């Protein structure tokens, strides 16, 4: 019987042939915590005298959620992580270096690895063909100290995508469409495998967007086979030697196979307060916006900023809208500066903030007022997510967000492509036909 990607990677890490449903203790390659979860990890490790990192160069501590710190309590939590890094030799990714998941794929994760992170969106690295999953502080603390964890080998749902996106439609619209289709618990305890010709042609940035949101469907992992695109990405990161081909066997057994025609997807939004509460943009009606946020581990990459800059070039955001842009990492920021994207965005009225999670987690840098409405490119719109339970969050693609920042209402980005008014001065923008 053939194996899924999850079964293959987990089998390699527990040195026996395992299939879905089995419980195993598996070796872990990369572990990570962030400033929201790491201090508790360290506290728990201390309690049982296990304050150690068995594999320090593959243990990464990120200060990205409250970064730079808005409060003394959080500054003190940051110190806990810096001290642990000094003590154990673990890698520290400090204020301004970027969102953990972007930094992990840029510099730390390779195909075929097992990644355990104390952050639910750890599944992002699945796009590199790694088995990457989020856990809590204690699970990750034990994995940091001992280099292993227990896992139930998950069943896998295969999502096979064929066809070409329309102009103005992106991977974000696809994953929101899937969330609406199968629900916020549609893949609980399971892994997802994204396959098909649309995925084969999809650039890494968009693959990361898909894998990032696997957890929003309840999934344990969002896996994509590694291929030439993965190899080129690693090459661009100076890590070509870490490339390995990871793919599912032809006769792998799936719990379900879902077929999707990408050409039928239209710009999609999640409405408050759950990710699976989706609607297509043509049916949204008049939703007036107070804030637009472009960034995060879902959509804060250079490709996303290019899309936004192409739409906002030589234009001004709507006067009633606060536009916030947060590059996902310092490297993304630097590249955007080099390409003139930051100037374009600032001239359009954007507030460009330090790389990190920005306002997505509701700690700082863009908390909503009562009854205010935000359109964000992030992955969650739960009640209270952006710091105020009386705020309303819609989720959409960077194109929908940028165009809506111009109009002041949630708007269909296909309009600009149909009118040929989008300027295409920034190179390498994908899916503009």
């Amino acid at each position, binding site marked *: 019987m053939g194996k899924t990607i999850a079964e293959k990677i987990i089998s390699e890490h527990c040195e026996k042939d395992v299939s879905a449903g089995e*419980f195993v203790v598996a070796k872990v390659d990369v572990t990570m915590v962030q400033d*929201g979860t790491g201090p508790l990890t360290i506290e728990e490790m201390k309690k049982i005298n296990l304050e150690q990192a068995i594999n320090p160069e593959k243990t990464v501590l990120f200060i990205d959620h409250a970064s730079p710190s808005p409060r003394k309590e959080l500054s*003190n939590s940051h110190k806990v992580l810096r001290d642990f890094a000094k003590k154990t030799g673990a890698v520290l990714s400090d204020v301004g270096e970027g969102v953990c998941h972007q930094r992990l794929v840029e510099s730390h994760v390779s195909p075929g690895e097992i990644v355990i992170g104390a952050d639910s969106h750890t599944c992002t690295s699945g796009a590199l063909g790694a088995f990457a999953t989020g856990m809590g502080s204690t699970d990750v603390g034990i994995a940091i100290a001992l280099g292993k964890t227990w896992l139930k080998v998950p069943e896998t749902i295969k999502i096979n995508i064929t066809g070409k996106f329309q102009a103005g439609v992106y991977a974000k619209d696809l994953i929101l469409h899937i969330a609406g289709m199968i629900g916020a618990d549609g893949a609980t305890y399971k892994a997802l495998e994204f396959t098909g010709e649309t995925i084969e042609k999809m650039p890494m940035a968009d693959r990361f967007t898909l894998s990032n949101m696997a957890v929003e469907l*309840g999934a*344990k992992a969002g896996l994509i086979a590694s291929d030439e695109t993965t190899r080129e990405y690693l090459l661009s990161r100076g890590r070509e030697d870490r490339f390995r081909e990871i793919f599912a066997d032809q006769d792998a057994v799936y719990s379900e196979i879902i077929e999707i025609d990408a050409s039928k997807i239209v710009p999609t939004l999640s409405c408050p307060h759950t990710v699976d509460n989706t609607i297509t943009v043509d049916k949204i009606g008049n939703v007036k916006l107070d804030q637009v946020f472009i960034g995060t581990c879902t959509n804060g990459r250079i490709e996303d900023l290019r899309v936004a800059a192409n739409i906002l070039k030589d234009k001004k955001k709507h006067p009633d809208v606060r536009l916030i842009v947060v590059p996902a990492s310092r490297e993304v920021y630097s590249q955007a500066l080099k390409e003139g994207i930051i100037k374009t965005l600032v001239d359009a009225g954007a507030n460009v903030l330090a790389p990190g999670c920005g306002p997505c987690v509701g*700690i700082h840098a863009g908390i909503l007022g009562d009854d205010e409405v935000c359109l964000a490119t992030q992955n969650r719109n739960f009640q209270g997510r952006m*710091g105020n339970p009386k705020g309303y969050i819609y989720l959409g693609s960077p194109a929908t967000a940028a165009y809506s920042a111009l109009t002041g209402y949630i708007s269909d980005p296909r309009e600009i492509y149909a009118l040929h008014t989008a300027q295409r001065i920034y190179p390498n923008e994908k899916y503009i036909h």
Partner: protein
Amino acid sequence: MIKKGKAWKFGNNISTDHIAPGRLFHLRSNLPELAKHVLEDADPDFAKNMSHGDFVVAGKNFGLGSSREHAPKIIKIAGVNAVLAKSFARIFFRNAINIGLPLIECNTDLINQGDDLEVNLEAGIVKNLTQNIDIKITPLPEVMIKILNEGGLAKHIEKHGDFQLV
């Protein structure tokens, strides 16, 4: 062990943002204080009105969202005996068992706000004393029963020095 308490009813998709919101991120280093706000964004009066030993009773997909272990921790610190739901999100499920908060998967449609419950984990039964109904519990995987019985994952590792689960 038999536990008795009152049911506090919540809906579907109660997220970790409802349980331990990001706006109180700075209280993560002060869990007793954070526990005073537990589930605040789902029911602002819950923490104030609940009594030690009561049960949180919810619909499907309880605990979805973030990996923050602080969420089950403050439910436990607030004095909640166990969380009953039709289903739990995966990370919350692991976290709760790891820190020793019992989770009970059962048909919570058979429980109303304020019902008196008696939970017998060993027998796998929730007795709704108010409505005089027995509700069957879906058993936990054996690995998780071991962790729960040893007082959580940290205690398990402290005792054995390694995983002794499978």
